[in-house]
């Protein structure tokens, strides 16, 4: 049998923590990467997938890493762990190349992209400057950068995110590596761009006969183009094998859970499946389908007419141009229903939410809340209404004050709006809300940094609930969470809506999540609404070109993947 390109066996890595204890990052994992194969390494945060790829590059920090004696990483039959620093340097960039999640921070901002490609070529291939320059242009042509002849003189900030990632790929394949490690290369990109980049990576893999180690948290992304998959959790491998086999007949409950907790475009269960449903070992019963949509005669709680928000961009000493972030947006929000706003970055979807919340001042337009325009009223008049419109932000790590305990976070809004008679009553309410969002009672005296992302988002939700709002604006509220946690939070939001009849303005770039939770959907592009309608009909019959393009860009799960959902 031919030796695989990479053989990892018995890999055990511990990190020494600040307090002297050890954290077991990898618990004796073994897998191979064959030649000419795309292997997807899938796992949620903390699963050890990034540690694995970093170890393979020999890039783990020496000071606090303990690699077990029996561990073995072989690249083409040579042990990576035993290599000297010089050999490792030759390995990286030569035989192994890597592309990262954020292309902007991996490109050097003070050099042109041409210089950066040429430098790599000269370093590893000892080419002449002229030959390297020609090769750089060829590479940029190959990765599909328009006008490579002139773009070779561009600086990274002059390119869009997708183009930067293309440049990163050009640098990575410059030395014709045998293995390309792609660490979440599309996570920071819009769906339409994500699709292009994935196609490019596949094309390059085929053309250059490389192997690709594709590290990702998103099972949906890999279904389409990976050959093999390794599913990791807590430093262990749950399941591995040929992708079709794993997806068609997942054996490990965690794999089953991962496949099911992601909202699907074709089916909308009452509740999303969560990992617990599978780990408990009982056969999982798929819940009934929930029907959605606005109903005639339902009271309208918020009516937005012709909302505009322009940002002034300074172009000269006294010259400004208007950047039309939101341009004439109108919609209605029914009580107890959800309006989903989708769009790519820069479409103005978040600005809509922030303007209605008056975190940004609107340029023109009105937002009628129970008949009163909340955009034109004074701050004093708006204050009592503020408690009835609340917002949950994208990043739960940033939206909670790190110096406040959870108790203080929850009690502060009550103090500001004079809810509750005294301290005891407020505390009691705060504790009952913690219970409602599924946090333990002892969370009350803890600080935000002691919680995981999903738990923090629950705290943020509880903070909004203290004010018992009628409208909740969810600004990318589940985008920063792992899929399994995302499912839990989506379920929580749904439960709360059912219980309190709240209306949601659900803003997200993730079409399947929006489809799952929304009754009506509004598609935005460059500040304008391009399409609006009932969630199901928009997905089934997208009218506008842009909507069609968006839906087509969602990683299309092969038939066997969708079939598996009715497990």
């Amino acid at each position, binding site marked *: 049998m031919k030796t695989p390109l990479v053989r990892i066996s018995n890999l055990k890595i511990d990190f020494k923590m600040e307090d002297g204890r050890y954290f077991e990052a990898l618990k004796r994992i073994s897998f191979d990467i064959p030649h000419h194969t795309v292997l997807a390494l899938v796992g949620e945060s903390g699963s050890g997938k990034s540690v694995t790829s970093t170890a393979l590059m020999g890039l783990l920090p020496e000071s606090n890493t303990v690699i077990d004696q029996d561990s073995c990483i072989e690249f083409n039959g040579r042990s990576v762990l035993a290599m000297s620093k010089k050999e490792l340097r030759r390995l990286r960039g030569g035989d192994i190349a890597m592309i990262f999640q954020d292309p902007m921070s991996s490109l050097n901002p003070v050099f042109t992209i041409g210089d950066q490609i040429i430098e790599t070529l000269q370093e590893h291939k000892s080419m002449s400057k002229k030959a390297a320059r020609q090769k750089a242009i060829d590479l940029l042509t190959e990765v599909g950068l328009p006008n490579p002849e002139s773009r070779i003189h561009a600086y990274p900030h002059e390119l869009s995110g997708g183009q930067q990632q293309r440049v990163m790929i050009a640098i990575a394949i410059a030395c014709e590596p045998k293995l390309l490690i792609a660490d979440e290369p599309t996570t920071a990109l819009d769906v339409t761009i994500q699709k292009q980049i994935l196609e490019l990576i596949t094309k390059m893999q085929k053309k250059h006969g490389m192997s690709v180690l594709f590290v990702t948290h998103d099972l949906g992304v890999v279904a389409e183009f990976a050959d093999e998959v390794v599913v990791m959790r807590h430093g262990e491998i749950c399941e591995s094998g040929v992708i079709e086999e794993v997806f068609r007949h997942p054996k490990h409950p965690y794999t089953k859970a991962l496949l099911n907790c992601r909202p699907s475009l074709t089916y909308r269960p009452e509740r999303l499946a969560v990992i617990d449903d599978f780990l408990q070992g009982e056969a999982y019963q798929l819940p009934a389908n929930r029907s959605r949509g606005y109903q005639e005669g339902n009271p309208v709680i918020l009516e937005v007419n012709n909302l505009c928000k322009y940002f002034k961009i300074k172009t000269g000493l006294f010259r400004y141009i208007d950047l039309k972030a939101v341009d004439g947006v109108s919609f209605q929000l029914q009580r107890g229903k959800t309006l989903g706003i989708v769009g790519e970055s820069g479409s103005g979807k978040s600005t809509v939410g922030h303007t209605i919340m008056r975190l940004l001042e609107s340029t023109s337009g009105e937002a009628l809340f129970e008949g009163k325009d909340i955009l034109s009223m004074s701050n004093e008049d708006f204050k009592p209404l503020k408690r009835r419109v609340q917002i949950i932000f994208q990043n739960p790590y940033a939206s909670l*004050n790190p110096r406040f305990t959870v108790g203080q976070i929850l009690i502060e809004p009550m103090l500001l709006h004079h809810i509750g008679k005294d301290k005891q009553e407020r505390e009691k309410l705060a504790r009952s809300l913690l219970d409602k969002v599924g946090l333990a009672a002892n969370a009350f005296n803890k600080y935000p940094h002691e919680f995981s992302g999903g738990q923090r988002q629950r705290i943020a939700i509880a903070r909004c609930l203290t004010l018992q709002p009628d409208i909740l604006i969810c600004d990318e509220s589940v985008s920063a969470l792992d899929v399994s946690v995302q499912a839990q939070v989506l379920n929580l939001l749904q439960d709360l809506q059912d219980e309190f009849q709240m209306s949601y303005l659900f803003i997200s770039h993730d079409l399947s999540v929006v489809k799952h939770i929304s009754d009506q959907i509004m598609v935005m592009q460059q500040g304008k609404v391009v399409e609006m309608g009932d969630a199901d009909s928009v997905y089934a019959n997208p009218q506008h070109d842009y909507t069609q393009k968006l839906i087509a860009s969602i990683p299309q799960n092969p038939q066997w993947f969708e079939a598996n959902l009715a497990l």
Partner: protein
Amino acid sequence: MSQDNNLTLDQEKVETQVPAQSLSSLAWKRLKRDKVGMISLLIVCFYLLLCAAGWMGLAGENWRADVAVPNAPPTFATWEPRGTQVNTVTAPSGSADQVDDDNSAAAPDPLAALMAQADKHESQYESKTTKLKETLILGADGQGRDVLQKAIKGTSVSVSVALLGAFCAIVIGTILGAIAGYFGKWVDDVLMWFYSIFTSVPDMLLLLSFAAVLSRGISTLVLIFALTSWTYVFRLMRAEFMKHKERDYIKAADAIGAGQTRKMFRHILPNVSHILLVQFSILTVGMIKSEVVLSFLGFGVGIKQTSWGAMLAEVPAELIQGYWWQMLTVTVFMSVLVTAFSLLTDSLRDALDPKVS
């Protein structure tokens, strides 16, 4: 490597964890593991105690008394006893005076009555001679004052001037910086103009011109230091407030209806307090040094007080004559504190902001 495990069993995990840890208690834990930092902290605390003791009159109280012969050497540096002949007068036997006395005894003394009266008066007073010490532990200065006492008194003056000055600079800088950074726009422009004017003058020139105009004394020094040093704090705080006001947690505070003052001082200030602590420590060290320079140039605490700078100002004249002990004492006192403070600053920074190191 992310520490958070998005477990489904999160809840149980959290419950088994140790009790709540605020960021400051975590920082304290980190500081406690830093040996250099802890030793520095102990030294700084010792100086603070000394400083407090100086003000309460428990130490360094008699720094002005002439307790020893001028320039008495320190005990440890006394190789041969000096000045033993100073106070003793022995009358030579059989000298001319003796003869004169005999003669006068024979003749009647016209002043005898007066002398007797004077003797009687004198006997009503009690006279006591204090003998000046010939050596002291750390020697004496040109006026016979105890160098150790002076150094202790000097410590309490210098350290408190520096601490108070740093504190005032922090308060002024933080308030102005918070206002400029948080409100931005024209408020920021006005304050930035003000800041630019202040920083356009060289520091030492500013110090000297304030010192020349205002009267001498501790409060003047504090004022001068505060007025010249707030700019550093201002610049830092302005930048921090600009950064933090865009953070989501401030938007969230806005969304629940928190007012401006609340957002500025209840929300943002605790999040930048670690920077203030480090800055306070850096400023204190700088001010200790500035005080020395000012006093050395004659713009210091004045002659009614003493400080490290005032003591060092006496040093050149003494050194010419070979009296080195005052210089050594002050230098050791000062350099130990300055070194400890600087090391503590580094450790504090590491402890408070582990990302940097």
